[in-house]
Structures are given as C-alpha cells and as structure tokens.
C-alpha cells in the first residue's frame, strides 16, 4: 500500500530538465545532408589520398584567363573559353582500388565555404580525368577544370568522389597549396591525353 505523497519540487525539476534535454536533442539532431555526408579523407598535394573506390594525387595546379583547345572531330579548328573569373586547372592522377570506377564528382572547396563544381562549359573539349574509367592499380593522369572568382583561389581544396548522389562513400579532399595563388597565364592549352 502506498501512502499519498507530498508534492515534490525535485520531481518537477527533473521533468523540466528532461524536457529541456529532449528539446536540445531534437534541435541538435543533424539534418539528412549531415547524416548522409561523405566520409572525408584529407591529404596534401603530391601524395596519393586513398578512398574506398579510388585513390588520387594532385601533381600540379595552374590558373589561366582563357582555355584553348582543338574542337574534337574538326581538326585545325581552335576554340577558346574565357571566364568572368579565372580557370583553375588541376593536374592529377588517379587509380581505382578494386573495381573500375569514375570520378563522378569533382569540386573546389573555397575558404569561405563554397563549393564550385567542375565546369560544364567544355563541350567538344578533350576529355578530363573525370570522364575516364579508372582501372584497379593503373594510374591515369589528366586534368580537372574549374571556373571560380580570382579572390576564391587562395586556400582552395579539391574534393573528389565517385558519385554525387550516392553519399556515405569516401570523398577525397586534397589541399591545393594555394596560399599564394599563381598569377594566371593568358592561355592554357587543353590537349588530348
């Protein structure tokens, strides 16, 4: 038999604390993007950074005001692309780990937290590294091309992943060592690999 109890301040306090805790948990729960975020592997330029599907290495970084390339299929015709910012050309090599794979997503992460995807303006240009099927243990070299404002260059990182719509996989983030970005040259010539 229980005896009727007196009102207890401690019980009220405990309830209030529990409610506050629940509210805090609800508010601090990461959203879908954060929960499904890629698993980041960081690395320095010049070294192979390894992910689940592929490994990649940045060998050189260049900037240019204009890109120039021969129109594929039409010899002796030269196309050029200017930019409101600057072209960033990352020379890299990559190899698959186990199975043939593609670099499905390449982007530049800037110091102010923005994400610049690869340029989609290179119709008829020679294929970039992202278009090449990588084979296990066989290094493929090529370029990745981005367009960004000049003031976004300093402190930029490269982010590579096998797929953009398949999260929870590795994303390689490689420092481009652009503390002092190089002066852009007038032209960068894209050549066939």
């Amino acid at each position, binding site marked *: 038999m229980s005896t009727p109890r007196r009102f207890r301040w401690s019980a009220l306090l405990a309830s209030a604390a529990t409610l506050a805790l629940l509210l805090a948990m609800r508010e601090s729960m990461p*959203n879908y993007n954060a929960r499904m975020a890629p698993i980041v592997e960081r690395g320095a330029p010049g070294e192979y950074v390894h992910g689940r599907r592929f490994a990649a290495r940045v060998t050189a970084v260049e900037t240019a005001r204009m890109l120039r390339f021969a129109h594929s299929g039409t010899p002796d015709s030269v196309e050029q692309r200017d930019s409101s910012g600057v072209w960033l050309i990352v020379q890299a090599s990559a190899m698959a780990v186990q199975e043939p794979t593609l670099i499905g997503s390449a982007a530049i992460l800037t110091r102010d937290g923005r994400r610049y995807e690869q340029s*989609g*303006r290179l119709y008829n240009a020679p294929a970039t590294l992202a278009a090449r099927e990588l084979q296990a243990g066989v290094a493929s070299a090529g370029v990745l091309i981005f367009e960004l404002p000049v003031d976004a260059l300093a402190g930029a990182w490269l982010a590579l992943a096998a797929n953009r719509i398949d999260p929870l996989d590795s994303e390689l983030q490689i420092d481009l060592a652009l503390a002092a970005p190089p002066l852009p040259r007038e032209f960068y010539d894209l050549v066939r690999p």
Partner: protein
Amino acid sequence: MPQLDAGKGVDTGQWHVVVHAATLSARRPDGRPAARGKANLAIELELTNRTRSSSNDFATLLRIALPAIAAKTPPTSQLLLRDNSVLSSLHPKMSERIALAWDIPLATPIPDPLPVVVMSKIHKQRDNLSGGAGWFDPKPMAEVRLHVTTPDAPATLP
C-alpha cells in the same frame, strides 16, 4: 506585387536577378531556328548565384504572363550568352548574362509591355520528405514589365 524596372536587380535568396530585355524572333538566342510553326520569346537576364554551391536551379526562375506559356513550363532553351552555349550550371558569386527562351505559337498576341514575374524560393534546413536542406516552393516575388523587341520583323513596307 512589387514592380521592378528592367535593368534593376532583385535578390530572390538563391539568385541575384537583373532582367534586361525581351526579344521575339524566329531564331533562338544562339542563332538556331525556333521549332516549326513557332517563334522564340527570349528573356535576357543577369544571374548571380548567391548560395554556397554551383546550381542549375533556374528553370522556374521566371514566369511569363502569357496564356501560350503554361505556368510551370520550363524554358525551351537556357543559354549562356558568353559562349552562346547550353547553360549547365552557375557557380557562386560569378555573374553571367543568360537567356531563358520559350518557343511559342507564331500567332500568339504579345502584350506591350509584357509582364514577366520573378519567382523566389525559400530555403528549408530540413525538407518535409527526407529532412535535407534545399530550396523549395517557388512564389511570385516581383514583376518586370518589358518592351518586347522584334529584331527580324519585316521593316515597314514602303
């Protein structure tokens, strides 16, 4: 709805938009002919991506107040005027002149001025479906009245 002058900018959240001009022509802005039996109505604008990542979410940016263009019809062509090429995506903080163009039936009466509505989306930190962040719910934000130029209209006959 707030009125906006052509050439004046407005922030929709996602984009900074400056609507410049409207053109009705037999050709699309890249020089290719409009579909058979149609004319091409092109709106030229300057867009700046204000978000933190590259985006191609501009198909619902403008709504043309013409019965010939149903409310949610995406443009027939989206062009980057710098190269006259198909626009893939726009990168943060990089303004570009672009054209959103619709093929419309030849006999469509065009009011002068033509009302063009700039749409704006809201950012949700958690959407209702998966709980991810994104831009949703396009709503009319401002209206620009544009004089439609017809560059290839036959010159007045003598």
